[in-house]
C-alpha cells in the first residue's frame, strides 16, 4: 500500500511531504492514545498484579492508522478508484493474515471497508461523503419502502419465526437466542408506546419489567399461584405501578420527566435489593416454577403422581427441548399480541391523541384533550406489557435477582426503540436483531462488545438521529386509492 502511495505521488497535484506529515501526525495521536490503553496490560501473576507491555499491538494499530489516513487523503485528492481497489484488497488480505488479537483484525477489516465505502461514494459523486440531507432522504425512502413492504415482510418474518425451532440448524442455543431477542422485541414494542407514540422519554422502563417478574415470583413463592394465573396479575400490577408513578410524574416535561423515571427505575431495584425478608434481597428468588402446558401438562420427565407430562400427553419421547420450544412460542405469541394491540390502537382516538401529544401538547389542550389521562393510559399500557415480559422472564430463568433489572437494561430497550426509529414497529425488530442478536453472534469478542455497542450508537446518532426506519404512515386516508406519499411526491415534483 505504501509502495503504491509513493508510486502515485509521482503524479502532479499530490504533495507527498504534506501527505506524509498529515498521516504522521494522525499516527502520532494514535500512538498517544493506544500506548496507555492498548500497550500496557495488567496481568495477574500469582497474587500480584503486574504490567506486561504489548508493543506489537500498538505498532500494528499505529501502522493501520497511518495507512488508513493515507487512504483517506488519496480519496480526497481524487484518487478514489485506486484507493477503492487497494482498500478492498487490504480488507480481504486482513481476513487471512494472522493478527495478534481478534480485535485488531476486526478493526483492520472494518477500517478498510469504511475507506472503501468512502472511496466508492467519492468515485461516484466526486464528494467524500453524502450531505446530511441526502443521507436523510435516502434513509427516508428506504423507511417508506420498508413500511410499504411490511404487508409481505411481516407475514414472512412471522412465518420464519414460527418454523425456526424446527429448522435443521436450530439447536438449543439458537432457540435460546431467539427467546432472548423476542423478549427484547416485546419490551421494545411496549416501550415504543410511551417513547415512540406518546413522546415521553422513559428511562426507567425496566422497573415495570421488574415488577412483572417479581409479581410472578412472589405470588408463586408465597401463594403457589400458577404461571397462567400470574401472567395477567403481573400485567395488572405493573400497570398499577405505572399509574402510581404516572400521577406525580406526568406533569413534568421533557428532561425532567426522563430524570424522574430514571429515579423510579432505581427505586424499584433498590427496594427489591433491600427488602430482604420479602424479596430475598440480593440473593433473589430461586426455584420459580416453570410454566405448564396451559395448565394441562408439565414438561417433566417424571411428572408428580396423578399428573400427566407433555410427552405422555402427545405420546412422544421426552426431550428437554420441548419446554424451550414452548417458551419460544409463548414469547412469540406475547410479542405478537403487543404488536397487534399497538397497530390497532394507533388508529383509535387514544393512539392519535398520543401522537398529537408528542407533536404539540399545548395544541392538544386547546382541543380539549385531557393530557394527564392520555399520558397515564400510555404509561399504564406500556407498563402492563413490561409486566407480561417480566413474568415471562421470571418463568424462563427460574431465578431472578435485582441484578437483572439495572439501568443498563432500560438503556438497551430504549436504544432498541431509538435505533429502530421512534414509533416504527419493524424498526424495533431490526434494532433488536442488531443490538441483541449481533453481540450474541460475536460472543468471542465479548470484551469489545460494549465498546462496539457504544461506537455503534454514536455513529447512528451522528448519521441518522431519527433512527434507522423512522417513517410514519397516516392512520387514516381521505383519498385511499393512491398512496398519500405518491401524491405528495407528484406535487413536489410539480412545484
Amino acid at each position, binding site marked *: 500500500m505504501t509502495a503504491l502511495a509513493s508510486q502515485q505521488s509521482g503524479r502532479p497535484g499530490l504533495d507527498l511531504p504534506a501527505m506524509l506529515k498529515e498521516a504522521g501526525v494522525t499516527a502520532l495521536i494514535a500512538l498517544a492514545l493506544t500506548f496507555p490503553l492498548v500497550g500496557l496490560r495488567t496481568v495477574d501473576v500469582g497474587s500480584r498484579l503486574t504490567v506486561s507491555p504489548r508493543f506489537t499491538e500498538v505498532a500494528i494499530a499505529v501502522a493501520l492508522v497511518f495507512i488508513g489516513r493515507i487512504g483517506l487523503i488519496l480519496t480526497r485528492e481524487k484518487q478514489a478508484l485506486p484507493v477503492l481497489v487497494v482498500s478492498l484488497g487490504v480488507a480481504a488480505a486482513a481476513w487471512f493474515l494472522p493478527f495478534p488479537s481478534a480485535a485488531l483484525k476486526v478493526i483492520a477489516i472494518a477500517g478498510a471497508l469504511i475507506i472503501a465505502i468512502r472511496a466508492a461514494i467519492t468515485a461516484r459523486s466526486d464528494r467524500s461523503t453524502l450531505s446530511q440531507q441526502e443521507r436523510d432522504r435516502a434513509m427516508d425512502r428506504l423507511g417508506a419502502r420498508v413500511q410499504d413492504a411490511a404487508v409481505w415482510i411481516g407475514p414472512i418474518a412471522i412465518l420464519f419465526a414460527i418454523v425456526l425451532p424446527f429448522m435443521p440448524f436450530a439447536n438449543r442455543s439458537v432457540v435460546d437466542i431467539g427467546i432472548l431477542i423476542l423478549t427484547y422485541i416485546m419490551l421494545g414494542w411496549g416501550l415504543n408506546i410511551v417513547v415512540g407514540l406518546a413522546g415521553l422519554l422513559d428511562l426507567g422502563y425496566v422497573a415495570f419489567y421488574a415488577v412483572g417478574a417479581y409479581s410472578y415470583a412472589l405470588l408463586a413463592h408465597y401463594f403457589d399461584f400458577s404461571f397462567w394465573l400470574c401472567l395477567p396479575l403481573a400485567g395488572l400490577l405493573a400497570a398499577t405501578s405505572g399509574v402510581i408513578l404516572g400521577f406525580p410524574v406526568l406533569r413534568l416535561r421533557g428532561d425532567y420527566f426522563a430524570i424522574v423515571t430514571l429515579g423510579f427505575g432505581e427505586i424499584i431495584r433498590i427496594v427489591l435489593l433491600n427488602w430482604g425478608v420479602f424479596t430475598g434481597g440480593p440473593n433473589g428468588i430461586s426455584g420459580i416454577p416453570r410454566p405448564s402446558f396451559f395448565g394441562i401438562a408439565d414438561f417433566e420427565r417424571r411428572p408428580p403422581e396423578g399428573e400427566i407430562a407433555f410427552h405422555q400427553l402427545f405420546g412422544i419421547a421426552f426431550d428437554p427441548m420441548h419446554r424451550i420450544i414452548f417458551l419460544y412460542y409463548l414469547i412469540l405469541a406475547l410479542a405478537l399480541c403487543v404488536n397487534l394491540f399497538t397497530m390497532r390502537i394507533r388508529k*383509535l382516538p387514544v393512539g392519535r391523541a398520543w*401522537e398529537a401529544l408528542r407533536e404539540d401538547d399545548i395544541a392538544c389542550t386547546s382541543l380539549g384533550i385531557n393530557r394527564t389521562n392520555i399520558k397515564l*393510559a400510555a404509561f399504564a399500557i406500556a407498563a402492563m406489557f413490561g409486566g407480561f415480559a417480566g413474568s415471562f422472564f421470571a418463568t424462563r430463568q427460574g431465578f431472578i435477582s435485582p441484578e437483572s433489572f439495572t439501568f443498563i437494561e432500560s438503556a438497551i430497550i430504549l436504544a432498541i426503540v431509538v435505533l429502530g426509529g421512534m414509533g416504527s414497529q419493524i424498526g424495533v425488530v431490526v434494532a433488536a436483531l442488531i443490538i441483541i442478536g449481533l453481540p450474541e453472534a460475536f460472543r468471542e469478542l465479548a470484551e469489545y462488545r460494549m465498546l462496539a455497542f457504544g461506537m455503534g450508537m454514536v455513529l447512528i446518532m451522528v448519521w441518522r438521529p431519527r433512527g434507522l426506519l423512522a417513517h410514519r404512515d397516516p392512520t387514516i386516508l381521505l383519498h385511499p386509492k393512491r398512496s398519500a406519499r405518491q401524491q405528495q411526491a407528484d406535487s413536489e415534483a410539480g412545484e
Partner: protein
Amino acid sequence: MTAITGTPLLEVEHLTMRFGGLVAVNDVSFTAMKQQITAVIGPNGAGKTTMFNCLTGFYSPTVGRLALHRDEGIFLLERLEAFRISQQAAVARTFQNIRLFAHMSVLENLIVAQHNKLMKASGFSVAGLLGLPVYRKAEKEAVELARHWLDKVKLTKFADWEAGNLPYGAQRRLEIARAMCTEPVLLCLDEPAAGLNPRESGDLAELLIYIRDEEKIGVLLIEHDMSVVMRISDHVVVLDYGRKISDGTPAYVKSDPTVIRAYLGEEEHEELPPEIIRDLPEVAEREEGA
C-alpha cells in the same frame, strides 16, 4: 362608546392579569355577542394574547369573571381547567405561532380535534379495539365533518399530506379548520392573518364571514391587519398597555382620537384638543402610579 346590540355570548368583567409587578391586562371589561365577529386590536404588547390565554385557560386570571353563555347554561371560564374550556365550554382557539401536529396528516389533525366525541364512541378504546360498528360509524362521521371543513378551507386535495409540509397560508387555514372541528360556540383566533398575502387575507375574511353567518358561531379575533378587521368585524375592542381604551363599532373606533393617539403616538400639546390637554396631568399621574 357606541352600543353594540345582540345576545351576549362572552362577558368579560374586570379581567386583570398580573405577572409579578407587571400588569399585562388591567381591568378590561367587554361583551362579545353571539354570531358576531368581535375584534381585539391594539399595539404590540397591549395584552391581547395574554387576554386570550386567560380566556382559554392557559393562564388563570388574577381578577375577573369570564362568563360564557351557552344554551346549557353559563360557564365560568376562569374556573375551568384548560382542556375543559374546549371540552365543556366549547371555546376553540388558534395560536399566533401556528401549532399544528406537524408530522401527522392534515386529516389526522382534524380527527384529533374530535377526540372527545370519538373517545366516547370508541367506548374508551374497548369498542374500538374490538372493531365494533358503533365506533366505525362515529369515525366515518368524524371524517365527514373533517371533509366539510377541508372543503371550506380548500385543503381537500392535501388531506393526506403531512401538515408540516403545507405552505404557510394553508397551515393557518388548517389551524382554523381544526379549531372548528371541535364544534365550538366561540372561536378565538390569534392573529390569523399574520404573514398572509392580500389575496389570502381576503379569503380568510370570507371564511370568517361564513363561520359567523352560516355556522352561526361567535368569533373573537386578535388582528393587526386593519383591512381585515374593519371589513368583517361587528365590534372592535381596543387595548393599550393592558387597558381598554375604546370599544364600539369599527366606524366609531376608527375615528376615536384615543385610538388614533395609541396607534400614531401623541402629537404636540398645542395641537391636541383642549379636553385631552386637561386630562394629560391625570394620565401622567396614573402612569407614575402604575
